[in-house]
Each structure stands twice: as C-alpha cells, then as structure tokens.
C-alpha cells in the first residue's frame, strides 16, 4: 500500500493545505493545553495525523514530512526522556524531583516556572505520542505487505 502513493492533483493540492494546518494546529493545542482543553496527548495525535496523511499521499519514498521507523522508535524514547528531563533539571536546580519552582531558569518562580515545567512535560508527551502513532502505523502497514522487503 505504502509504496505507491495514491495522490492525484486533487489530493496533492489538499495536502498542501491540510498538513501544514494540522501541524500548526497541533502546536496551538500543545501551547494552550496548560490552561484550556487540549494538551500533549491531543497535540501528539494531531501532529501524528499530519505526518500519516503526508505519507499516505506522497508515498513512503518521499522525504517531505517523513520519519522512518527506526528513527521514530528512538525518538519516542527521547520524547519521554524530555519529560524526565524536567525532573532532572529541578534536581539540578537544588529542589526535589519535579518541583518546578527550582527549574534553573531566571523567570518568576511562582507561576512562570510552573508553566514552563508543565510545557516541557507536554512537549515530551507530544513527541512520544506522535512517534508512537507513527510506529503503530508502520507496524500495521508492514504486516499487510507480504513481501517484507519494505524497510
């Protein structure tokens, strides 16, 4: 399925609108997630959707908006590590684990640092969810291709 892109003129034009929009919208959901509906999981799903769409329309060989399986697996771990990183930074700042008041940045301690800490965690979750969705898609598509040469 994935080897042959099923784009045509119509889909290619739609792609130019849809994919950048979904990626930008994902960032919006991510940033606003702290104080309104949304957040890391939703942002990750929307962003993953954009990349899945790009791969469906342009095919697997395309280099635009395309992340290979081996990279996405490693990046999923790194995304979750960003979450852990917030904890490490608070430890480095002299506080307890995940005590955002001690993040080593020169911001207003009470709320700005807390918002920054939560944002870091949301970014980590976003990357992780997005890469996991790509992984799931890759595995499902690989199953459906009998010849197994699609790597």
């Amino acid at each position, binding site marked *: 399925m994935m080897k042959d892109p099923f784009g045509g003129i119509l889909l290619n034009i739609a792609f130019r609108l849809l994919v950048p929009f979904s990626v930008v919208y994902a960032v919006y959901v991510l940033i606003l997630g702290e104080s309104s509906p949304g957040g890391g999981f939703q942002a990750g799903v929307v962003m993953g959707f954009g990349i899945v769409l790009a791969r469906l329309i342009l095919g697997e060989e395309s280099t635009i908006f395309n992340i290979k399986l081996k990279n996405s697996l490693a990046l999923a*771990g790194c995304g979750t590590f960003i979450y852990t990183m917030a904890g490490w930074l608070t430890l480095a700042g002299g506080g*307890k684990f995940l005590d955002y008041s001690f993040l080593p940045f020169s911001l207003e301690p009470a709320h700005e640092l807390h918002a920054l800490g939560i944002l870091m965690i949301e970014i980590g979750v976003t990357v992780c969810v997005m890469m996991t969705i790509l992984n799931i898609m890759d595995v499902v598509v690989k199953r459906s291709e009998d010849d197994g040469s699609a790597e």
Partner: protein
Amino acid sequence: MIFGVHSPVFIVLLPLSASLLCLAFSRLHRHLGGWVVQLSLLGAFLSSVDSMRQVLDAGGKTIHYWMGNWQPPIGIEFAIDPLNTAVLCMITFISLVVSFYSKPFLENEDWLHYGGYYTLYGLLTVGLCGMTVTGDVFNMYVYLEIMSLAGYGLIAMGGHKSMVAAFRYLLVGTIGASFYLLGIGFLYAMTGSLNMADISERIVPFVHTPLFAFAVACFLVAFGIKMALFPLHGWQPDSYTYSHPGAAGLISGCMSKVPAYAMLRYFFYVFGIHNTVMQSLMNVLGIMGICGILIGSVMALAQYDFRRMLAYSSVAQLGYIAVGMALGNIHGFVGAVLHLINHAFMKCCLFLVVGGITYRFGEVNLYRLGGLNKKMPVSSIAVCLAVLSMVGIPPTCGFFSKWYLMLGAYESQQYIHIVVLVISSLLNAVYYFRIVEQMFVQREASLTELHEPATKLGLPMNMVVPIGITGLGILLLGVYSSTLVNRIVEIGLPEVLMR
C-alpha cells in the same frame, strides 16, 4: 550530601532515563544502549545501598521523599523503610548481575533488538523498584503496569512458543491489574485518600464493613495473580519456560516476589491483621499457600523440562511466602520476608544455569544432563548450592527461612503447616536431587554443541561470573542470615505484630 537526599528517587529515575534513551544510543552504536542501561542499574544499586544506610542510621524510621515537594496525602511520596531497602537491594543487584549475563544471547541481534531488549529490561527493573519503593496506592498501579508490560515484551522475545505464553500472561495479568484498580477504587471510596500511611489511619472505622471485605478480596486476587499463587498460577509455567533465556533470571527471580512483597505491605502495614475480615482472609491465604506448596511440588515432580520444573517449584515456593504471611506472627513474617529474598537468589541462580545449558546445547531435558559437572563445573557447583538451599539444608539460605516458618507455625499452633512444610521439603529433595544425580553420577549424555565453549568453564565469562555470584549469594545469605534478620528485618517489623 546532595546525592543522599535524593537517593530514593534515583533508584527509579536512573534506570527510567537510561532505558528511555537506550534505543537512541543503540541507534548510534549497537552496544552503547546496553552499556548505558547497565551503568544506570549500577547507579540504582548504589542508591539502594545508600538508602539502606540512611534508614539504618535513622534507627529504622521511615524516610519520606515527596515528589515535587507536595505534601502527602495530596502529593505522591516514596517511602523508604528497612524492609523496602532490603528488597530494593535484592532487585537492583539481581538486575545488574543478569544484565551482564544477557549479552551472549544478543550477539547476533541487530541494533533494534539489542536496544529493545535493554529498554524492556530497564523498564522491568523500574517497575519492580517503583512498586517496592512507592508509598502511594495509585502510583503502585502505574509501576505494576510498567513491570507487567515490560515483562510481556521480554517473555515474547523468547522465540518458539513464547508469543502464546506472553499473550496468555497478558490476558490474565490484565485481569489482575483490573482487580487491583477495583480495589483502589473501593479504598478511595471509603477513605478518600490514596496515600498508604494515610489510608492505614482512615480505614480503621471501616474494617467491619462488607465493602472493606470486598476491597481486600480484590487485592488478594490481584496480587495472587501477579505472584502466581495457587490456584491463580495458570499463566506462570508457560511464561517462565518460554521467556527470553537472558532475562529469565530476573523474571523468575523478582517478578513474582515483588507483588508478594506488595501484598505483604498492604496486609501488614495498611489494613492491619487484627480484625475479623483480615483474620478470615489470612485463613484463605494460608489454605491457598498449603495447596500451592503441595500441588506445585507434585507437578514439579512430573516434569522432564528443567525450566518447567523450576516454574512449578516457584508455585510451591510462593506458597511458603503465603503461608508465612498467613501465620500472622513475628516468626512467620520474618520467614516470609527472608524466603522472599532467598528464593529470588535461588531461582535466579537456577534459571541462569538453565539459560547457560540452553545457550550451549539448545535443550534442557532433565534426563540428558549427564556429565555436566565436567563440561560446566562452575554451573554444576552453583546448582548444587541452589538445590541444597531449595531442600533446606544449612548453611545455605533456604534452611533459615524454612526454620522461621516452622517456628511461626509452632507458635500459632498450626501443626498442619509444619507437616506440609516437612512433606514439601521431602518432595523438593526428590525432584531436586535427581538433577544433581544426573549431573554428577550419570554417564555423559550425547548433546550437540551449539556454541563451542570459549573458556575452560564451558561458557563465556559473561555468563559464568553471574552464575558464580548468585551461587555465592545463596551461601552468603545463609551464613549472614542472622545479621539480615537482626539488623534489617526485625527493625522494620510492622506495628500490628508488636501488640
């Protein structure tokens, strides 16, 4: 010292960070991810030892570490007490040792499987340590799931029939986790708290209600499934038999002990045992333990696959721990804790040897082990030590835990427990000594060598040293068992037993 204050959190944080980054490192170089995870496991072991030093310096008083400096019961806390640290040291030590042992099995794998193996391995350790160290019931659920998911992955990596075994465990394990969640739900409905120490105070007015009985039964089923207590052990023989041979030591050694420890913590530290509900539950637990001991031993007697025999023997040994808990006195409790630690080392050692035999010959039929004492001398000696300990012969560690269990049974006048313990020791002797007989007395079996021996000891050094260390551990745990009991276990006894 800054490190010292944070050492409780490092026990979990270091392996977690390393295993998350493991695949990315493995992408750069095949072995790099594995090294990072091993380094983090060493760090976790040192943190556990440091925590133990701190808690013993404080005279056994529980050390609390508040996540994000949120005070419990609102925040999540890690609680470090003497028993905790003993179990933590056991987990991280076994995990560290077995991580070296796994390497020869992964020689021909690509970076993805190599890195993936160590990712799952690190996450399994995270789950085990987290379950032991956390003081929050819902946090424990999260770690239980981390442990189970990593465990399913490692079991499925074993090849051959492992997929089916892993899937079966997944189905049963999910039911167990659901029961645990249900139990938390009832506890929360009654007390409005998720912190263990807080629940133990707030639960007191509810201990005679039917809701409490139901919640406690949920916990019994949940941990019973996870620790493979008879009759909930159906998933376990297949999973142990077909799991990845490199990780089988950790899976068999720790994965059923930590839920047992969690059950012990709930029953003795949170619910208290001096109420009618818990008394009748303890009776049920005792009957389950006795049946497990007898049926596990008999089933082990019937096996010819070495791994399967060990798996059934685990069912029996978990029965000992259940009986120790069910006795509900100090000696029974000490026996249960001691057996938990001892059995982890014994079973780990035996599974490491079995993995070594699989690695070299590709088959583990019990009746084709003849002449192994010449081919694999260190492994044979380790098996001897483990067998002596399983049967319960001093100075190996198995004797001391059984001794405490007997004392406990005598103290609470449960003579049937003593009879069962003796019978099961005899059965142990029957099915374990035939291994020794095969190895040392029978003439050499004709086995095809998959891997030519690299050293005179018959296995790569990566495998011989862990086998030797765990074998030595059995002996040392036996020799120093009085130190372990007097200095650590007896300091951490729950208050309910002191009355």
